[in-house]
């Protein structure tokens, strides 16, 4: 069992509430970096000076936050009304186990039982019609345990079965994990491990860090959606689990710097690292903000393909995560 991955993916860290994730990362990277600082947005920046002479500034970025919920109000029956933080398909919600607040009080996302419905099976309830039940029947009692503004996460245990990993928040604790691993080894260039806040609610953390770091190159390390589901027609079905690290050509927020992209593809080929592309023009990451900070930054996105991201259960492959770490290491050390 990879205990660091277990810790990182099980901890709560909905956008705006990344403190517990940050504490774990600090504990892990402290022995391997020269300085650590937390900026005004709450981003964590770990700096490791390079061993070489002509050193470039390379920023490795990953976001600490995950999608989740926030308690909006507590009704008279002690049920918690909530809102989503980040994009979550509401069709995955009903009946799922959750943990509420920093005390991680177990609960479930509730909707009236099938017996109490009248011909509603085909209608998808709105988030406002759902509530979180933590086992109280009275507002006053519930208020002793939780309060408005408490964050809520999916209650998912991390598990491994050979190469396959199961858990929540693979987007983007995989990136956090990868940076920690990369910072353990020596590099010729100056490395800034940047752990961002609030990616899931609009790429809000990363530009502040990029502004102060002024990197020559940036690599964003991510968990991305795998598309290896059954397809009805002959259409794009990549990236796929266990087919290697995913490299972005373009998404809704960003086009990879062409020279940097060519360099990365060459590096992957030369080092026989399994690599695949992300489907163009879909999704977005912190790279969208990073690449256009100040006068522009040469930026790439590497990701681990994960099935069912932004849901209570994701599946991914350890070998893909290792490919991502390997490609990042080789890329940063091949930069002249």
């Amino acid at each position, binding site marked *: 069992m990879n205990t660091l991955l277990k810790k990182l993916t099980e901890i709560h860290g909905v956008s705006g509430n990344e403190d517990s994730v940050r504490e774990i990362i600090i504990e892990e990277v402290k022995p391997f970096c020269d300085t650590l600082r937390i900026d005004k947005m709450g981003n964590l920046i770990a700096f490791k000076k390079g061993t070489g002479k002509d050193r470039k500034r390379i920023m490795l970025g990953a976001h600490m936050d995950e999608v989740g919920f926030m308690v909006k109000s507590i009704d008279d029956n002690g049920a918690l009304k909530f809102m989503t933080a980040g994009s979550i398909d509401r069709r995955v919600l009903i009946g799922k186990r959750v943990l509420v607040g920093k005390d991680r009080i177990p609960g479930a996302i509730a909707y009236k039982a099938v017996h109490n419905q009248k011909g509603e099976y085909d209608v998808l309830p709105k988030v406002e019609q759902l509530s979180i039940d933590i086992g109280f029947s009275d507002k006053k009692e519930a208020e002793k345990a939780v309060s408005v503004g408490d964050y809520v996460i999916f209650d998912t245990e991390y598990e491994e079965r050979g190469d396959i990993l199961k858990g929540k928040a693979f987007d983007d604790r995989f990136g956090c994990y990868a940076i920690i691993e990369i910072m353990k080894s020596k590099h010729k260039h100056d490395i800034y491990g940047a752990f961002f806040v609030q990616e899931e609610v609009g790429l809000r953390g990363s530009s502040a860090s990029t502004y102060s770091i002024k990197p020559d190159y940036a690599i964003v390390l991510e968990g991305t959606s795998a598309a290896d589901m059954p397809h009805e027609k*002959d*259409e*794009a079905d990549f990236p796929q689990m266990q087919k290697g690290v995913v490299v972005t*050509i*373009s998404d809704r*927020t960003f*086009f990879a*710097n*062409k020279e940097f992209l060519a360099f990365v593809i060459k590096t992957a080929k030369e080092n026989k690292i399994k690599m695949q*592309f992300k*489907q*163009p*023009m*879909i999704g977005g990451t912190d790279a969208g903000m990073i*690449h*256009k*900070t*100040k*006068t*522009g*930054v*040469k930026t790439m996105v590497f990701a681990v393909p994960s099935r069912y991201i932004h849901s209570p259960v994701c599946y991914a492959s350890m070998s893909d995560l290792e490919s991502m770490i390997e490609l990042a290491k080789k890329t940063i050390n091949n930069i002249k």
Partner: protein
Amino acid sequence: MKQLIRALTEIIGPSSHEELVADYIEKALKKNKKLEIKRDVMGNLIARRKGSGKKIMLAAHMDEIGFMVKHIDKNGYLRFAVVGGIFNHNIIENHVKFTNNVEGVIGIEPKSFNWKEIPSGEKMFIDIGAKSKAEAEKLVSIGSLAGMKATFVDMGKRISTKTLDDRIGCAMLIELALQEIKGNNDIYFVFTTQEEVGLRGAKTSAFGISPDFAVAIDVTDTGDVPESHIMEVSLGKGPAIKVMDSGMVVRKPVIDFMKETAEKNKIPYQLEILTAGSTDAMAIQTNRDGVLAGVVSIPTRYIHSQAEMCDMDDVENGIKLIKAMIETDLKKKGF
């Protein structure tokens, strides 16, 4: 001028792949030995006419809307994602051209075709004449970019073709950069990238230049075709001075300066209020601690199609207006 516009519009340069346009422009600009030319990380082409006065940034974007390959099927058809604001109803069964000169046709799944509604891009494909996946893979790959292919129609005063948005602005900037400009303003002619996907190149180039005054030169919609939405802009009545669009409100000192300059030089102009869309000036205006920025727009019909149309008088008058502005001593204006 028409020849220059025609040459520029024929180049394929979808957002993120503006090199072919940039190479052409750079070659043209080299005729003026006094210009300092460079490109930045985002691919913006920046030509500086050095001066001791105020810093002026003139911006026109090089990129165009287009298509990116995301899948090659077993029969060699390409599925694509759109880049920028493509209107699906005018791309079906039209020609496209890739940056490597491969050409194709946009087809639609016959089963999905319904005259009554505008189909989604998911139902379309690009046919490059390949008979198999292997054959197609020799010509394009995942990530390959194409733009629309169109003919250049010369109607005398008026011209119609693809990508007048914003090669018309590029042509005007080239023309200005090659002219003798009086005064000592420090002028940056900036040919920006990735405007159509979110004004990205303008943001980084404006940060690098940190101008005292900036003007974007771009196209704007008109209200002069039958049953138009209400818009007080017509072809041939002069370049439009932007008052407002959905991304920016131009500050009064800028509008006043543009109007005064036009009136003083007897250049016809129109005032533009655009309810949908914006330009590089939006990204420039909010850069750093704020920039006085405005837009000189060329009235254009059928924007984002293969048949955009503008009037050459507006182009010529637009050049005159910008020239008069950049020859003004902006220190005296308090810019």
